[in-house]
């Protein structure tokens, strides 16, 4: 709510004008029965054609002014609603930029996208309708009652009773049904899920002969949906007949009381018509109000979800001033480092210690889920270690500022992610001030220069959303080039050459060796062939460091490493060795 209030404050003028003019319009609506009563009581009674014409003209004038008020209100309501939505989207996006990887993982990509699109739209709709109707409907309900009092206080007492009864019915039914509708939606989602699952998994379902079981399961979910729908339908159906009866009872009461009063000449028959009209206005407004509340409930729920993203505080704080590089030759040091991801049951890496010197190439190898990516993600402080310390240039990573870390370390992630724009605009992510010469140099090293040169637009070749007009291997090479453009002290390649063929991979590794001497390179790979020339290879198994050394040393001493290597080169290597 606090987020919404700030927007109401920002759009104070709009937020006041819109409901105000809506109320003005409503006021004219409320006056209509009075004018009609005048026509009957004065005009018809006195057979005064001029008066009748005047009053009918008044009705039309009121309708026109009402229209003008309404247009004004709609305009300002739309402005406030859209201003709020645009602002919220900006606020969300700005907030997301500040979240750390831990929050990004916890919240999840698809959730964030839904929050920014569907939920914000829902809020926009809610604000719009809120400003337009929320004051109008209660105003008409209360106003009709007040007008009834001005017509005749005695007869108006009927309104005083009818309105609370009607409200109880309308809101009671809504309160009862809204959780039930939620249930219906859940059941429908379950049926949708079951359908999709049966389609995508048709081969498995049939391979295991589970067709009948799946059909039965579907029928069960479908039956549950049906039962839930009927249940809520029965209760929701009550609203109309109940309100109908109450309004008509009130109508009868008005007629009876009115008849009595007309007889005693305390009321005119035109006034009775006015009272009847007010009663039907109330019914119409109550139904509108109920619909509005459904819409607002949804908007508030969306707002809550948006707020929970905005409330997610980044779990990472950076110091104001950066540390100074300390140690002369040490680039990265891990000291008994463990990490448990938030929400995970167990550690992903456990008690890891090693030192990487400036200019070294460090290989990281291990099986699926052994913690390779986790390990390298700790170096640029994407995550904070839950135990132990990670140091950069002799200082704990937590002592460095955000900007300093990003300047010194470049990461090429597993998933090659490019952005819509041009090849140039993507490469400039690494360093916005880079010259074309620097870009080409990076492309050369990343083995990407050749295919970029073949593109008609060269550096200005268009890159589509997510880089879908490039092949997997091309994307990977561009992401490597992008990292190289930033000329980092530490370069991390997280299994980022997987789509490259053997020859390109080898050429890439050769080129990387010609980087400035002080550049420390981490290469994560599943292939031992990619790491053979590394100064140091870290072997991970199930989150633990089971070996550390050169290829030759590890072949001697590390069982796991040898197994990995042999699984890739078994026969040939043995044979090749024998023949040599």
């Amino acid at each position, binding site marked *: 709510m606090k987020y919404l209030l700030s927007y109401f404050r920002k759009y104070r003028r709009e937020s006041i004008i819109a409901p105000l003019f809506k109320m003005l319009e409503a006021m004219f609506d409320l006056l209509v029965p009075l004018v009609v009563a005048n*026509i*009957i009581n004065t*005009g*018809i009674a006195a057979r005064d*054609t001029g008066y009748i014409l005047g009053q*009918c003209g008044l009705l039309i004038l*009121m309708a026109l002014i009402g*229209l003008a008020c*309404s*247009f004004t209100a*709609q305009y300002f309501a739309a402005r406030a609603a859209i201003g709020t*939505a*645009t602002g919220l989207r900006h606020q969300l996006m700005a907030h*997301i*930029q*500040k979240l750390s990887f831990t929050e*990004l993982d916890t919240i999840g990509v698809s959730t*964030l996208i839904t929050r920014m*699109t569907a939920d914000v739209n829902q809020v926009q709709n809610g604000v*719009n309708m809120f400003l*337009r109707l929320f004051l109008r409907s209660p105003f008409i309900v209360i106003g009709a009652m007040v007008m009834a009092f001005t017509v005749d206080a005695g007869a108006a007492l009927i309104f005083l009773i009818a309105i609370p009864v009607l409200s109880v019915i309308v809101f009671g039914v809504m309160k009862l049904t809204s959780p039930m509708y939620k249930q219906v939606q859940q059941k*429908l989602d379950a*049926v949708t899920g*079951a359908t999709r699952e049966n*389609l*995508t998994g048709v081969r498995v379902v*049939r*391979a295991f*002969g589970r067709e*009948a079981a*799946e059909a039965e399961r579907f029928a069960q979910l479908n*039956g549950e949906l*049906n039962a839930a729908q009927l249940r809520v339908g029965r209760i929701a159906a009550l609203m*109309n*007949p109940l309100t*109908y*009866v109450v309004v*008509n*009872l009130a109508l009868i009461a008005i*007629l009876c009381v009115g*008849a009595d009063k*007309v*007889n005693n000449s305390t009321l005119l*028959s035109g006034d009775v018509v006015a009272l*009847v*009209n007010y009663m039907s206005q109330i019914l119409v407004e109550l139904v509108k109000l109920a619909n509005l509340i459904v819409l607002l409930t949804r908007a508030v729920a969306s707002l809550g979800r948006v707020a929970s993203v905005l409330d997610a505080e980044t779990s990472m704080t950076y110091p104001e001033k950066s540390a100074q590089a300390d140690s002369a030759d040490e680039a990265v040091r891990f000291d008994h480092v463990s990490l448990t991801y938030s929400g995970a*049951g167990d550690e992903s890496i456990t008690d890891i210690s090693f030192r990487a010197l400036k200019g070294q190439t460090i290989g990281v190898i291990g099986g*699926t889920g052994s913690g390779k990516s986790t390990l390298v993600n700790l170096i640029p402080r*994407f995550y904070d270690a839950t135990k132990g310390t990670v140091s950069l240039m002799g200082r704990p990573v937590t002592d460095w500022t*955000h*900007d300093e870390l990003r*300047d010194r370390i470049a990461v090429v992630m597993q998933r090659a*992610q490019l*952005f819509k724009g041009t090849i140039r605009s993507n490469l400039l992510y690494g360093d916005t001030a880079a010259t074309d010469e620097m870009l080409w140099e990076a492309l050369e090293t990343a083995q990407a220069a050749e295919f970029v040169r073949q593109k008609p637009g060269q550096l200005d070749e268009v890159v589509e959303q*997510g880089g879908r007009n490039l092949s997997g291997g091309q994307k990977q090479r561009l992401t490597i080039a992008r990292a190289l453009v*930033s000329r980092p002290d530490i370069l991390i390649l997280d299994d980022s050459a997987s789509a490259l063929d053997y020859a390109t991979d*080898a050429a890439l590794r050769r080129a990387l060796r010609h980087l400035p001497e002080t550049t420390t390179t981490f290469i994560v790979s599943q292939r031992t062939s990619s790491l053979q020339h590394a100064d140091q290879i870290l072997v991970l198994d199930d989150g633990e460091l089971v070996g550390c050394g050169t290829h030759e040393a590890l072949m001697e001493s590390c069982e796991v490493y040898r*197994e990995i290597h042999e*699984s890739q080169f*078994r026969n040939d290597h043995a044979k090749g060795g024998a023949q040599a």
Partner: protein
Amino acid sequence: MSKQKKGLDLQTLRRVFPYVKPYRLHLLTSLLCASVSAAAALLIPIFSGNAIDCMLGPGAVDVAGVGKWALLIALSAVLAAIAQQFLATSNNRIAYCISRDIRNETSCKLQRLPLSYLDAHPAGDVVSRVIADVDAFSDGLLMGFTQLFTGVVTICGTLGIMLALNVSIALLVVVLTPLSLFVAAFIAKRTHRYFTEQAKVRGEQTALINEMIEGQKVIQAFGHEDESLAAFDEINGQLGKVSLNATFFSSLVNPSTRLVNNIIYAAVGLVCALFAIAENPAMTIGGMSVFLSYASQYAKPFNEISGVVTELQNALACVRRIFTLLDERDRPADAADAADLDAKGHVSLADVSFRYVPDRPLIEDFSLDVQPGQRIAIVGPTGCGKTTLINLLMRFYDVNEGAIRVDGTDIRQIKRQELRRSIGMVLQDTWLKAGTIRENIAYGKPDATLEEIIAAAKASHAHSFIRRLPNGYDTVITENGGNLSAGQKQLLCIARVMLTLPPMLILDEATSSIDTRTELRIQSAFAKMMAGRTSFIVAHRLSTIREADVILVMRDGHIVEQGNHDTLIAQNGFYATLYNAQFGL
């Protein structure tokens, strides 16, 4: 075709009747109740008008008359209320139950459709038929019918009563009321442009949001947050502008139609009043109140009916899509004399030919004899027919010519379930059910004990990651294992097969997302399990298949080479080329 779209499609409509038939009593109730409630809605204003006419002035009030009309109002209101309740519940029952029936039918149909249909139609399309189309149909058709019915009853009733009361005013209302429809249509047409524009910009923004959020980690890793936010703000501002137009102009419809209605109201009031003060009054005060209330309500059924035709057309279009699905040919049923199977694992393919598309031959004259317990590896470039061979072995597709035999019996003479249960299959496309890890592993053997499940998970090297999950074996995985990595999903699929221990095994790129070392261990687990069992392995990672008894090298649907690793390398043919390309040797 276009003709069909315009008019109501009677043929489709006729097919709908059998679905309504079980609920015809409800339908009858619904129509009856709709008439009652419409009649009451029309009569009550008249009764109250008559009551008002009983109040001529001080001392001239016919109290008994007012009482009589009041009683009539009460009676009609209660009757109408009861009718409304029955109407709503009957309609609910008809709509919801027909949806349920149709959905169950489609679900059973899906289990019987041949793979050729399901492979050719995207899952999203079929899902939208089963879910959205069924909903749209039941809502649209039934609500459409009731609305049409009530609308017609109301319009006729209103007309009749107004004509009976006063012909000229009735004509005035009849002529003026549709004006509001025109105004609404007029504005809607003008605002259409703004909506298309809004949809376009919104689409662009959504695409950008998708890209930015998916690439958020990269943006942060390069410290590119400010630039990205600026790009976002630009399109955000643009959307704000077009949205304002679309929202504002479309919000003019309601006030404008209200204006028209108010003007009609004033006109009716004026004419009524003039009639009332004429020399011999053709209008009473009560009559005037009736007309005023009709004038304000008369536009409503027109609005509704104008929507009904589109709604009905839409509903029929939806149900047509469902019927098309239901009309698809089933896979052929099991032969009446289809045999059970207790397979030893002797598989033979004799002169098999197969093509997905009639004019594009794929597998031609393919013959192969596999002894029980042999390991067959199938290799070859993409699209050479490896996966097709598996489709045939599992009988997802039937051969066009020739025959596949298991233990000497043509697989078309074996019950499908028997055949498939004797083959364990792990595919590259790792499908998991929404449910717990435990349920997924036990998919082929629902009565397995936890010990058996854990043993299978250990054998497939899935145990170590499962125990690290928040709830271990009871961790719920989302639809298709969204919260697991590709490698983890593959391990679970392998565990699923490990538990059932079938006599034959098919591995289609079963370990493509698993690192080589784990893969090797799984292979050894498979090897242990497969001792004496026949297995078919498809892989493009050649290291996976070196140990096969027979390697089939396929190219364009034919076996081009056949033999074990060493002999094929020695041949220095296609296999050797593939092998060297992979390892760069």
